[in-house]
Structure formats: structure tokens, C-alpha cells
């Protein structure tokens, strides 16, 4: 293998923060190099420097094939053969696959108009190189998230990239799609393309990596060949603490008292179309943590939205043995439910509002007399939760958009916990947050359960579901396919129920 990129002594200072401190990274052509580290370790900043979005402080050097180079901007980086595939997809949904691949560099015919046949033919070639079957004329919005990601990769390849950076590419993919992707990553590497791969998922890291570099607090910690690394060691390098110490052991707080019963819940779809999610029945006990697992598209989030009144459904919901009518989220909230949504930025938070305002949105009436908000009381309560949940924010008046992912998630949890719910639904509570924050969220859910709150945890992260749940319900294609007590819920059985 030959060396493609070498970065030495790369530092980056933002006002008040040193994001990177003399980082070194060396990348060979044809290798998959995993970059690991917690949120805030400096991975994104390093990526931005590699792709010319940010400029490093003076003093470091970037060499491409031994030549010292000053990356002047994103277009220059692309010309040098460096492409990036972001965590958030950057495809235009209302254009076709081919139009996306050739966006802003459409092939033109002699009249100066877009040469559509050539564009489609070349797009087809790029997709064929990936051995994926996607119609170049299809509108991207009609594709699955996984397919859209493949379109982005096809675009990167059509730039003749020699280094592709992938920032958590599987974060929103189903297990199957993720496997397709990791296979593809190996294939690209075997063709001599260098891959920088960022991921928080340990299994995936070890499946795909040739080498692993760890960043911590803006510094290079170590680089290992993947074969010489273990998950435990990797976590220790990332957080500087032991894996076991981080997560602790599971203690069940489940009682026998059934709090919530769901009977034959079936999605009601407009125009009498067939319901995808149907016949969902289960019980939830006081103090129990019930895990809901299923592949992407199995209907996990839909079930929770139906229970919470945000999606029309037929069937019965009983709380404390009595039938309740829930047709809107405010009905569900009145019944003592809380819903920490899957997508905190889209549905969990009002990003332009402050921590305090987001925190109190679920239970503002508590701080009101005659509908007038008592600001000091509201602030005091918010400060209390900032302290107990250890939310890192300079003040309650900070806008939540300025917080890190893990701290945003804690704000969402805080706003529901402060309402003192009897039932708390948490959908993908740890997506996109780092391991230390993940451990804190797990500990928090356990503590809530010990206080008698019933919790439903929805997650596509199987180890997480198994680690935290007293009982696991598995969904497959919109129905419950299995229900397992903690002792019986092994990785294999759950996966079998989800896929088999």
C-alpha cells in the first residue's frame, strides 16, 4: 500500500476553544481507516480541515502523496480527490438519481442544453460500479434512506475520488442496508480508494476497519491495526475509563402492577388503505423498562406515535385498568405520558428557543398563575434539572441549538421528566450521542424506573435494548413477532424474531 494523505501537527483554535491540538493522521491508499472518538473529540473539525471547509492553524502540514499542499476550499479538495459523505444526506429529493449525481456539472450537448441520455448513461455506470440496482431516472425522494446514501457514494465515485470520508454513514440505515454499505466500503477499499470512516457503533467499526485512530479532547491518542484492538480497549482509549465501570449492572425495578395495556392497536390509514402496523397488544408494568426492537421499517416509531395520539389508530388503550381516549398528544400527556422522540432536532426541540423555554414547554402551567408565567420559578426549576442531569450549558438562557447532541438529548429528557410522567416513551434515546453520554442516559432511565415510572425504550441498537430492558418486544413488518423476558433475550433470538 502507498501512503495517500499525511496530516501532521494539525491544530485548530476557535475563539476560546482549542478544538484540535497537534493532531497527526496518516492514511494509505486502499485502507479503511476508522476515526473514533466521543462527540467533541474533534473528529468533525478534522474532517472539515481535510475537505477544505476549515483552515488549520499555521504550523501543521498536509501532504498528499508526499507533496505539501494547502487545501484552499471544498472544490479544491474535491479536485485533489477528497470527497465527503455527511451524516445528514445532501441529496436533493425532488431531482432524479442522475440529476443528483451530476448536480452542478451536468453534461451538456452542442446546444448548451443538458445531455440527458449521456447523463443517465454515466449515472448508470457509476451505480454499476457499486453493484447496486437503482434506476438513474428514479426521483430520489422515492428511494429509501439507504439507497439515497448509495446515490451519494456514487456521486463521490463519479468525482474520481481517491479518498472518501464517511461521517456516520449507517446512523439512519436499517441493519440490512448497513451491511450492504459496509460491504461496499470494503469493496471500494479493495479498488484502491482510501476511506476515512467515522462511527459510534463498535461492531461496525471492527467489521470494517483496517486501522483505527482514536481522538480524545482534540488530541491524537493512538493508531492501531484493527486486529490488535478490542472493543474494551477502544472504549478505554476513547473515554479514558473502563467499559464496565461506565455502564454498571442491570437492576430491575419492575412490579406486577399493570399500568398500561394496549389492545389490538392498528394504524388507521386514510382512504381505507391497508394498515402497515396492526394488532399491537402488550402490557407495561409500573417501574418496568420495556424494550421495543425491530429493524428500520418494522413500525417501532409508528406504534409509539399511535399510543401517544400523534397518528390515527383503532384499538384500545387502558391505563390503570381504565379505558382512555387518546386522539392527540395533549390527551396522552394529560394521561401522564411523555414521549422523548426519535429525532430531537426535528420533533424534540424548538431549536431557536432557550434551554429554559424548551424545558418548560411540556409543563408550563406549573409555573403559571392565571396563565402568567412566573419566570423566577421557571428558571429555578430548570436550573435544578440542569444540575441533576448534568446538562452542560452556560445558562438556562442558552439557545438549545448551541448545545451538543448529548446535552440536547438531556434537555428533551428533562422536559418530560419534569412533568413527572407515569409512562415515559423514549425513542432512540442515544442515537448520535457518544458513549459517556449514552451511559448517563441509561443510568438516568434506570433511576426513573426505580422511582416507579414505566418506561418504553425503542431502539435499533440491539446491544442497547438488551442492556437496558427488563423485557423485550420484537416487531417485524408492523406486528409483534416475539416477546422475551430479559433472561431469554439473547442477541440471536431477538435478531431471529426481527428478521426470520
Amino acid at each position, binding site marked *: 500500500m502507498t501512503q495517500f494523505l499525511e496530516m501532521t501537527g494539525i491544530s485548530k483554535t476557535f475563539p476560546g476553544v482549542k478544538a484540535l491540538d497537534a493532531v497527526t493522521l496518516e492514511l494509505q491508499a486502499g485502507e479503511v481507516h476508522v476515526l473514533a472518538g466521543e462527540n467533541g473529540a474533534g473528529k468533525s473539525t478534522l474532517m472539515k480541515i481535510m475537505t477544505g471547509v476549515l483552515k488549520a492553524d499555521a504550523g501543521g502540514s498536509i501532504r498528499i502523496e508526499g507533496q505539501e499542499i494547502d487545501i484552499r476550499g471544498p472544490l479544491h479538495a474535491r479536485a485533489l480527490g477528497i470527497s465527503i459523505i455527511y451524516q445528514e444526506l445532501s441529496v436533493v429529493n425532488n431531482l432524479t438519481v442522475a440529476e443528483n449525481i451530476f448536480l452542478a456539472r451536468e453534461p451538456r450537448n452542442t446546444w448548451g442544453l443538458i445531455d440527458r441520455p449521456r447523463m443517465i448513461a454515466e449515472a448508470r455506470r457509476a451505480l454499476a460500479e457499486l453493484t447496486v440496482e437503482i434506476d438513474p431516472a428514479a426521483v430520489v425522494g422515492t428511494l429509501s434512506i439507504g439507497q439515497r446514501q448509495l446515490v451519494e457514494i456514487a456521486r463521490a465515485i463519479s468525482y474520481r475520488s481517491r479518498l472518501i470520508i464517511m461521517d456516520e454513514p449507517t446512523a439512519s440505515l436499517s441493519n440490512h442496508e448497513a451491511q450492504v454499505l459496509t460491504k461496499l466500503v470494503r469493496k471500494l477499499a479493495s479498488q484502491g480508494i482510501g476511506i476515512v470512516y467515522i462511527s459510534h457503533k463498535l461492531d461496525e467499526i471492527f467489521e470494517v476497519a483496517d486501522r483505527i485512530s482514536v481522538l480524545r479532547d482534540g488530541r491524537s491518542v493512538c493508531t492501531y491495526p484493527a486486529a490488535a484492538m478490542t472493543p474494551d480497549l477502544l472504549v478505554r482509549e476513547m473515554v479514558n475509563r473502563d467499559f464496565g465501570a461506565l455502564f454498571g449492572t442491570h437492576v430491575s425495578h419492575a412490579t406486577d402492577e399493570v399500568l398500561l395495556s394496549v389492545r389490538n392497536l392498528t394504524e388507521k390509514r386514510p382512504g381505507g388503505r391497508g394498515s402497515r402496523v396492526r394488532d399491537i397488544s402488550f402490557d407495561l408494568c409500573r417501574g418496568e423498562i420495556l424494550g421495543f426492537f425491530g429493524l428500520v421499517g418494522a413500525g417501532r416509531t409508528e406504534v409509539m406515535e399511535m399510543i401517544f395520539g400523534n397518528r390515527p389508530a383503532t384499538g384500545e388503550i387502558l391505563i390503570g385498568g381504565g379505558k382512555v381516549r387518546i386522539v392527540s398528544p395533549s390527551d396522552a400527556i394529560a394521561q401522564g405520558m411523555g414521549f422523548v*422522540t426519535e429525532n430531537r432536532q426535528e420533533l*424534540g426541540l424548538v431549536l431557536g428557543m432557550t434551554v429554559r*423555554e424548551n424545558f418548560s414547554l411540556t409543563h408550563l402551567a406549573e409555573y403559571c398563575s392565571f396563565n402568567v408565567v412566573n419566570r423566577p420559578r421557571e428558571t429555578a426549576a430548570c436550573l435544578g434539572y440542569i444540575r441533576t442531569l448534568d446538562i452542560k450549558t*452556560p445558562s438556562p*438562557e442558552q439557545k438549545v441549538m448551541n448545545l451538543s447532541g448529548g446535552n440536547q438529548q438531556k434537555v428533551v429528557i428533562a422536559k418530560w421528566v419534569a412533568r413527572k410522567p407515569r409512562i415515559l416513551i423514549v425513542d432512540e434515546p442515544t442515537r448520535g450521542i457518544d458513549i459517556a453520554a449514552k451511559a448517563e442516559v441509561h443510568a438516568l432511565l434506570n433511576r426513573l424506573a426505580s422511582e416507579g415510572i414505566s418506561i418504553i425504550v425503542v431502539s435499533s441498537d440491539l446491544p442497547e435494548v438488551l442492556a437496558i430492558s427488563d423485557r423485550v418486544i420484537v416487531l417485524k413488518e408492523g406486528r409483534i413477532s416475539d416477546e422475551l423476558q430479559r433472561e431469554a433475550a439473547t442477541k440471536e433470538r431477538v435478531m431471529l424474531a426481527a428478521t426470520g
Partner: protein
Amino acid sequence: MSVADNSPASRGRGGIHGKLSKLRHAREFNVLIALVMMGGAISVFTPYFLTVDNLMGVSRAFSLTAIMAIGMVMVIITGGIDLSVGSAMGLAGLVTALCFDSGYGQVSAVAAGLSVGAVFGLANGLLVTGIGLPPFIATLGTLSIGRGLMYMITHGVPLTPKTPDSFTILGQGYIGPVPVPVVILIVLTLIFSLVMIHTRFGRHIYATGGNEGAARLSGVKTQRVKLTVYMLSSLISSLAGVIAFSRYLSAEPASGFGSELDVIAAAAIGGASLSGGIGSVTGAVMGAALIGEIANGVVLLNINTYAQQAITGGVILVAVSLDVFRNRLKGGR
């Protein structure tokens, strides 16, 4: 975040210094500065500008736009828009005039005028929340219906019924040196500022515009919030219509036409974001004041009155551009 968060401003309490510093960071501060500077510039050329008489006259002239801007800014903060304010205003004045014409007393006449607002608000609110029309389209429709009705009722001829003297106080009276419409404006500004800043309803308006999905899932009844702001906007506009009729005692067939643009401009100059979640009542009122000040300056300085609209347009662009730059400086690294 950095230094700013340790300043008294961001902690939001402590001393007059903190209050001043907080004020300086508020978006409304820009408009206030523009207002003062523009006033200074005009009075350099004509000392008459800074007389009580003139300032009261200016205030009365922009008071109707400002009153309507209060309702508009609430709609805009929810992420909507209300194009029908001019029609609601004109039709409310006309209906009031019709009542006087048919011999009803002033209480029923005013009530009838305000009920026009209730009907407009209910229609706009239900079209937006019930049917789910985009607010732009829904209120564009009611705007046209309102205009059409006015021509149908008046046949293009102004209506000038006999009115009792006590009714004219609303538009023509004074309390001390202050015209009654300006008093009404001040009272409404105070009430709705307090509502927006200190009540649950106000917080829900900001949350609905900031992220409707998140607000709904947090238990905010977003549809009810939206219905209410459209109701308020139309009611406030119809009140402006009644005041206008009381001032001129003539219901013109074209009364209120085109005023929606001034009203939206006032809200935008005052810092409201048309994508929702951001804005303030005081900002919108000051925006209307700035437009009024420009109009006055154009007259006092003997500038071609046709230029007034062009100047107002320029001010809108400059004001909103400055706001965008300021945000970029604050947000960008």
C-alpha cells in the same frame, strides 16, 4: 459559547447596567436607533418635525398601521401570514357605517363592525387549521372576497351616514395632547407585549412558529393557537377599521386596500421572521412608526410624495439586511 454568556445581559438580571446591556442586544434596538436617527436627520432640515403638534399628528397617522401590525406579528410568529387585514379593516368600517345609516345606535354599530373581524378571523383560522390551506392562499382568498363585497355594497360610492358626536371621539378625540387612536395603540401594545412575553399563550405562539411538530408533541394545542392568532389579527384589524371610520366619517369603497403590505413591512422591519418563531409586538409597532416617520419626513422636506414608497421599500431592505448580517456575525464562527 464565549464571553457574552458571562455578561450580565445573558443572565438577564442585576442592575440597570444589565438591563441596558440586554436592551442593546434586543432586535428591537436596531429599529429604535433607526427611528431616532431618522428623526434627528429630519429635524436638521426642519425644526417643525420635533414639535408636539407634528409628533402627535405623525403618531395618529401611523397608529392604524401599528395597531394592525400587533395582530400581524402574532400571526407571523406562528409561521403564518394574514393578507386579509386591509379587507377586514375596510369592511368593518363599512359595516359600522351601514349600521349608522340604518339608524342603529353606536354600540350596535361598533359591535357589528367588530363582528366582521370575528368572521374574517374564524374563516382564516378554519381554512388554515381545519382544511390545511397555506396561510398565504387562505388569506389571499378572504382578502379578495372582502374587497369584492365592499364594491358590491358601496357600488363604488363612499357611504357617509350621520353619526353621533360621541362616536367621533374614537378617531378624532384627544386625551390631553394625545390623540385617542394613539392611546388605543399604546394600550394594545402594552397588553399584547405582556401576553407575548409573560403568558403561556405567548410562549405557545413562539413554540408553534419555532417548531410546530415539537410543540404539538410537547402538548401545545398548535391548531388552537393558530386559530386564535388569526382571530386576534382580524379582530384588531376590524377595530382599526372602526377607528378609521370614526376619524373620516366616510366609508370609502377602497378603504384599507393595500394596507396589508405596510402592516407586513412594519412587522418585518421590527425584526419578525417570516419563517416563524421570531418577532415582537414592540418591534412591529416601532416598524410602523418608522414607516410613518418616513412619510412625514417626505412631506416636511418637500420631497416628491411619489418617492415615499420607494424610500420605505429601501428602508425595509436595509433594516432586514442589517438584521441578517447581525445574525450571521453572532452565529457564524
